[in-house]
């Protein structure tokens, strides 16, 4: 029974809760049991409070029994990436510098999920301060891929991807700065969506690169992702970059897409992301699956054409200037004075020495590398050549998108150039690690919505298909992803993640 519940999607679990066929306590216990069984291997969570989760679930069950009007998410467990601050619940952002810190307030998205009646299972593992593509940069332990525990689950939201793919949570929130929702979703066989920048609140999200960071859903199905996105989206006066516009109807878009009617939809295949002359570093299996998926869309009536976006070739260098620059500034707040770790305060050392020692011991290597790089790129005399130039390149990338969207409704590409790689393979080579973000960076830099949906296996490992749309047209991502999902599920006869359940001994 336990195994059964944890292989269902959240929409079905919600239906059972509403119909009284299952209780939140029963459901929460099923996930906690699964965590107790599997998490030692998977390393998906940094913090789990079983007692608090069960108490919360009991409250929701009691409210339901009392006949209170409850929303569609009430009683459903959820996991949050440890980058979201949660009142009274330990929050580390994957770093030793925040070990043991209990935030005094909730992130807006955490508060919205709480108000919707969800049950917080725990905080998921991540690359330290969301810097990485493998979750090996977690200061605590690496997370592992449920499809093959010797491989990475992607990053930086790798704890969330491992938890959802492994049945340790029905769904989870991640954050995406350069691909940190989409790439882990792709390599673990999940749906992951990065919303339009500004459409989901960043209040209470521990900042990495403020002009890029965006929270979003990671789920087993497109419909689940849409449901979770609708629950967290919308204007927040506490985030000054928040867009004051209604959240588009995403569940409706997913349902419409699942009917497979794509007649008239114009799809652009981005040449620079795995097309002719741009296949270096891409797995052949990934390109095959993506090509087949494009053909599938054509079969459903979509009008497919190739589109060239030459500035995308510069997305990687621009991103690895902008993100470290903003990080070096954002991470200045971790100095051991107001919260978190403090090292060497023995009465003899000055403030500056204590700050430097605290940061030396509190930060891991990738965080330090990015602080040094960002400090360099923002230095007087170098600013124009590096950060300023990168921000101009960002404009070029946005112009390529604008030109492309004059002719097509969505752009598609692989989500990640490769399938999940073996743990350890890229740890000493930052550039190899950065290459994992190649396909996700353009939409990040332009602030556009983009989704990853599973499109098959290569070498027995999941491959993700990315759909990008114009700003605030997140519904198009869900519509096209749902069409892909439904068509592939129908052809396969099972849902994508059922393939993993079938091969894993329960």
């Amino acid at each position, binding site marked *: 029974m336990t195994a059964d519940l944890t292989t269902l999607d959240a929409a079905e679990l919600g239906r059972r809760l509403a119909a009284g066929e299952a209780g939140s306590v029963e459901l929460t216990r099923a996930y906690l049991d699964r965590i107790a069984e599997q998490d030692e291997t998977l390393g998906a969570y940094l913090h789990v409070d079983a007692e608090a989760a069960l108490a919360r679930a009991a409250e929701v069950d009691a409210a339901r029994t009392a006949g209170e009007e409850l929303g569609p998410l009430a009683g459903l467990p959820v996991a949050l990436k440890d980058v979201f601050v949660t009142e009274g619940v330990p929050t580390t952002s994957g770093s030793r510098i925040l070990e043991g810190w209990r935030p005094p307030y909730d992130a807006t998205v955490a508060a919205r999920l709480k108000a919707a009646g969800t049950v917080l299972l725990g905080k998921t593992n991540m690359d330290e301060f969301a810097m990485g593509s493998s979750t090996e940069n977690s200061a605590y332990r690496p997370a592992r891929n449920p499809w093959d525990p010797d491989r990475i689950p992607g990053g930086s939201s790798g704890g969330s991807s491992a938890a959802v793919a492994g049945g340790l949570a029905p769904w989870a929130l991640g954050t995406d700065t350069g691909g940190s929702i989409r790439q882990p979703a792709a390599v673990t066989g999940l749906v992951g969506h990065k919303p339009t920048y500004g459409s989901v609140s960043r209040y209470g999200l521990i900042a990495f690169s403020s002009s890029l960071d965006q929270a979003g859903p990671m789920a087993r199905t497109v419909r689940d992702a849409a449901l979770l996105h609708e629950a967290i989206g919308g204007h927040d006066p506490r985030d000054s970059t928040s867009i004051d516009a209604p959240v588009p109807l995403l569940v409706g878009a997913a349902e419409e897409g699942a009917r497979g009617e794509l007649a008239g939809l114009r799809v652009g295949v981005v040449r620079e992301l795995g097309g002719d002359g741009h296949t270096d570093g891409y797995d052949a299996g990934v390109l095959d699956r993506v090509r087949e998926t494009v053909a599938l869309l054509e079969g459903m009536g979509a009008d497919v054409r190739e589109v060239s976006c030459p500035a995308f070739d510069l997305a990687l260098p621009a991103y690895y200037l902008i993100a470290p620059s903003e990080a070096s500034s954002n991470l200045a707040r971790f100095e051991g004075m107001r919260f978190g770790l403090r090292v060497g305060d023995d009465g003899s050392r000055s403030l500056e020495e204590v700050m430097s020692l605290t940061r030396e011991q509190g930060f891991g290597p990738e965080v330090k590398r990015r602080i*040094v790089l960002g400090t360099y790129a923002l230095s007087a005399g170098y600013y124009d050549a590096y950060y300023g130039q990168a921000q101009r390149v960002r404009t070029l990338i946005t112009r390529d998108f604008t030109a492309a969207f004059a002719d097509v409704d969505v752009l598609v590409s692989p989500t990640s150039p490769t399938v999940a790689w073996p743990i350890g393979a890229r740890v000493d080579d930052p550039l190899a690690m950065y290459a994992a973000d190649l396909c996700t960076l353009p939409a990040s830099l332009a602030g556009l919505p983009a989704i990853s949906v599973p499109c098959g296996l290569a070498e027995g490992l999941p491959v993700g298909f990315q759909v990008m749309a114009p700003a605030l047209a997140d519904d198009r991502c869900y519509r096209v992803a749902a069409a892909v999902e439904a068509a592939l599920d129908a052809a396969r006869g099972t849902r994508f993640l059922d393939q993993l359940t079938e091969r894993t001994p329960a």
Partner: protein
Amino acid sequence: MSTPSPQGTAGLGRDDVAHLARLARLALTDEELDSFAGQLSAVLDAVAEVGKADVADVPPMTHAVPLTNVTRPDVVTPSLPRDVVLSQAPAAEDDRFRVPQILGEEE
């Protein structure tokens, strides 16, 4: 940085990394200085590609979605409770954060 690095690459030498780390209030171990100089030089070579773009008349993009003059109603709202915030501080004294000495003895 303005002088050629000891490694003779276009990138960052060990001393450059040490200098930048000092600016960022970041102590680094000898091993970190050794490995970062090489790794960051490689990264810097890669990111320097942005220099190839012809952007003479292109404005920098500072934000993904243009928003100007975001304001909120000028209404007083409660701050976080002081005791809750100070309970998470590394050191507190007399309802304040306690910090190490800011000025040296000679000052």
